[in-house]
């Protein structure tokens, strides 16, 4: 049943996303749209010593996008770009139906989305935004 998608942990994560705000002092800001529905995330990133210092965002999106943004925002600070990319890759694998635990166990909440391909983009949107922000930051740095 696709309503399994909307279990308590996803709903709660989405609620937390609404309380997370933008960063006051962002190093990079990117905006990314979901072509399926026009949903949009504006994501702020600050790096320190090559690690993610802080993330902020404003998300106009569905619960899945919000929940993904929340988990990302909670988990990323303090990690390296590599870990973040790894989390993104693990999330893609999880959505593709592959076995194995993602580096951030919370991402397992998205397992019921595997069957609904048209919603994968919703879950991935915040991760694509942060990758874009990282690329922009390293571009600026170099």
């Amino acid at each position, binding site marked *: *049943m*696709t*309503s*399994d*998608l*909307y279990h308590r942990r996803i*709903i709660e994560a989405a609620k937390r996303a609404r309380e997370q705000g933008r960063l006051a002092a962002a190093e990079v800001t990117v905006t990314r749209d979901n072509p*399926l*529905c*026009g*949903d949009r995330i504006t994501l702020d990133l600050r790096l320190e010593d090559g690690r993610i210092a802080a993330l902020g965002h404003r998300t*106009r*999106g*569905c*619960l*899945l996008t919000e929940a993904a943004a929340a988990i990302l925002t909670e988990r990323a600070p303090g990690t390296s770009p590599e870990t973040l990319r790894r989390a993104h890759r693990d999330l893609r694998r999880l959505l593709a139906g592959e076995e194995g635990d993602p580096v951030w166990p919370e991402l397992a909440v998205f397992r019921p989305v595997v069957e*609904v391909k048209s*919603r994968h983009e*919703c879950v991935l949107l915040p991760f694509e935004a942060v990758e874009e922000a990282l690329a922009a930051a390293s571009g600026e740095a170099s």
Partner: protein
Amino acid sequence: MSLDVAALRRSFPIFSRQPPPFHYLDNAATGQICAAAAEALTAYETAGRANVKRGVYRLADRATSAFAEARARIARYLGAAGPEEVILTSGTTFGLNLAAHVLEERVRAGDTILISRLEHHSNIVPWQMLAKRRGARLRALDVTADGRLDLAGLDAGIDRRTRIVALTHCSNVTGAVTDLAPIAARAREVGAVLVVDGAQRVPHGPLEVTTLGCDLYALSGHKMFGATGAGALWVRGELLAELPPFLGGGEMITRVTIEETAYAPPPHRFEAGTPPIGPALAMGAAAAWLAELDWRAIAAHEKTLTARLLEGLDRLPGVRIHGPRDLEARYGVVAFEVEGVHAHDVCQILDGFGVCTRGGHHCAQPLMEAFGTVATVRASLAPYNEEADIDALLEGLERVIRILR
């Protein structure tokens, strides 16, 4: 006489093939295929296939005759003056683009083309592109707060520079039906061509297209219970005779040399290459089958269901309907929002109840903008829908509201 919905449902193969619960309320996106169309499609593709228009062996001769008959059936369903007024296309979008290309020479720099904010992207983008190619201006009629075309702007919107007016006959979002008569009258006054997007009107019964006052009328087979892949564009005969071809290729010529080409008379001039034969036969079969139904009973049935849906939505907290309340001014295409809940989340949860609805901008972003939103949920009805479909939707929405708001 009231409609025997159970009997009608037996004429649609999907209802015996999809496991229950199956409440298909996405008919504005695509209708389900009727048995007559499915049989025509399968019989042609698997047992009678030959290319049309040129072969003399019996298999080809029969395919050619069947193709001509499909055109005639669609012409009769539309109320065209004759089959030669009907161009067989791959769908409404193609038909509207064809229109925008064959009418191109009538548009000069500084002329205007009038559309509306109620249009589907397929009736916006081709005109935007045409306006750009010709240096013309694109204007748009507004919509009323309840999602109808606002005719107040008609006199100002259409003037002597207006070459083309392109409007939908029925909105694919709000279900509002356009009153074409005053628009046609005004277009005639200034000598503008009136193009009508009939995609959402055609599934609701036969037409008398020659009395609508328009010059071109586009439709899709898949939305009128035919197969995907075919559509039609009706063009008033006198106008059609004057129009240049659009695409070039086989079947639309009388004589080709490397230097130049002489084009066939309408409608063949506008049909380049092997047509979508199977889908066109299916569309013809659907048109013939639809023409025999009791549309008075169907209209009453659809109105009853639409009323039940509108009233049910009104009773739910935080649900806002976009569209007219007057059942005489609309068909059963109902868009709404659930406050604080994203349209896709609504649709996904409804799917858990076997209810198929659509969430998003419905290829009508200017209308979404006019409504101050990005996405709505849409439930759209067909003759085969029944009270159980509406009730399942409403029940699902209660659940949505309980868990997500």
